[in-house]
């Protein structure tokens, strides 16, 4: 008799752990399979920690707002861990006319769906955050955005889900899904172990594409590597989440005092790796140059670590969520395209609700897996 569970979640990142948490909390018998040796080893522990709404695609904005309204404020108590959630606003900075136009576009788009985000000028920016250089001329400002610690939050979901009885197995890489009499039933792993479940949630980031293919579903996404770095602890300076119009860097100062910044070298999508998320020697210096243009007095701050991570970047930059009618029992929760941290509580709670009740508070139809059409 194979190992069975009511729900099998494939992928032990923040999405998989959070879904396991929401289901186990309702007494569901959950089994979560993580392919690597560590919980939260993909993007979940490599991102810049933003919990932001501004700058998001309107199709996924409601999910993030739902999460910020219903879960983020008390997540530390729920997960019995310090998520270090700050809701002190997000500044997306600009220096040139080109930047201003980009920011205005994003601001208008978000305001249309009811998000309070405004354009502010350089002086206003430096009133909010005096450490910013004089070259900053404008910014989009969203006061209800913020940031949190992705490491403790992800492991907090895992810890508490486990406490509610969810079973986690690491080092168990899923290679195949199998239907039985027309309904998805079996999950086959590289180790040869086979598990059975009523509902199978696919939350394995980019790996979800190969797994979904074994039941004839193609999830159009590609693997793009981003890099990030962290400084030594600094005296407290500011609590806003930061980004730039050109997205050359983003990040925040953590409770520990160190600054975490993510960024890009412009070669994203073409960088080479050796099968592991290994850094490229050009990126970190480039991120440093980007940061110093905006924060001159961080130039003496010492970098203590740099790292890299893959994004599961979907064809249109928003995730694929929800049921798959062609494969009854399959639920998708992947393709978060590099901004799956802030949206995780909102998205995971809705996926759990969908599995439990068949309905969701937030409409997910815009994020269906079969939305990809040809251009004409």
């Amino acid at each position, binding site marked *: 008799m194979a190992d069975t569970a009511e729900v099998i979640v494939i992928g032990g990142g923040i999405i998989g752990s959070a879904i396991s948490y929401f289901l186990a909390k309702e007494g569901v018998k959950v089994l979560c399979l993580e392919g690597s*040796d*560590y919980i939260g080893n993909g993007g979940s522990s490599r991102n810049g920690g933003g919990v932001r709404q501004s700058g998001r695609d309107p199709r996924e904005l409601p999910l993030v707002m739902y999460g910020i309204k219903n879960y983020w404020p008390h997540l530390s108590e729920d997960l019995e861990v310090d998520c270090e959630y700050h809701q002190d606003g997000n500044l997306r900075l600009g220096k040139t006319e080109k930047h201003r136009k980009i920011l205005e576009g994003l601001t208008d788009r978000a305001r249309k769906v009811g998000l309070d985000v405004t354009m502010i000028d350089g002086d206003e920016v430096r009133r909010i955050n005096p450490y910013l250089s004089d070259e900053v001329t404008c910014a989009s400002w969203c006061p209800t955005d913020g940031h949190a610690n992705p490491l*403790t939050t*992800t492991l907090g979901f895992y810890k508490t889900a486990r406490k509610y009885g969810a079973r986690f197995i690491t080092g168990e890489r899923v290679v195949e899904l199998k239907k039985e009499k027309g309904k998805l039933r079996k999950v086959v792993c590289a180790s040869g172990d086979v598990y059975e479940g009523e509902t199978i949630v696919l939350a394995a980031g980019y790996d979800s594409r190969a797994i979904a293919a074994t039941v004839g579903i193609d999830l159009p996404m590609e693997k793009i590597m981003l890099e990030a770095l962290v400084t030594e602890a600094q005296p407290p300076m500011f609590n806003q989440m930061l980004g730039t119009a050109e997205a050359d860097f983003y990040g925040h100062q953590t409770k520990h005092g160190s600054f975490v910044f993510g960024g890009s070298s412009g070669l994203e999508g073409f960088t080479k790796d050796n099968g592991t998320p290994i850094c490229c020697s050009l990126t970190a210096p480039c991120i440093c140059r980007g940061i110093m243009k905006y924060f001159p007095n961080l130039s003496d701050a010492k970098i203590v670590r740099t790292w890299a991570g893959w994004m599961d970047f979907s064809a249109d930059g928003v995730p694929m969520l929800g049921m798959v009618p062609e494969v009854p029992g399959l639920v998708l929760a992947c393709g978060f395209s590099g901004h799956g941290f802030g949206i995780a509580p909102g998205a995971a709670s809705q996926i759990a609700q969908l599995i439990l009740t068949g309905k969701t508070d937030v409409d997910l139809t815009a994020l269906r897996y079969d939305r990809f059409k040809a251009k004409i």
Partner: protein
Amino acid sequence: MNQVNDRSRDIGEFVPRPDDDMVICRCEEVTKGEIRKAVHEGMWTVTEVRRYLRTGMGLCQGQTCGKLVKGIIASELGIPQSELEPATSRVPMRPIEMKVFAKEAKEADGNG
């Protein structure tokens, strides 16, 4: 190296010990008790403990406490140390100021 690791295996409850408040990670001031408790909360690898408690995330990047933390986790799980993978090694090997990391020397081309 993927080892199937069922995290619901019973490793017993956390039992406080007299030396629990001894500092193990000197940079981030993480104690032995905190590390042992984290193992019982499900953090069964060096990397998970590192992300959960910040052991090895300080200025020295685990050069001093790396082996000690691995030893404590292994003894709490009742497995040999060699079965635990140490944390990933990452650039930079030593802390480096942002302005230095940003300043790439102009190399004379070729073998100059």
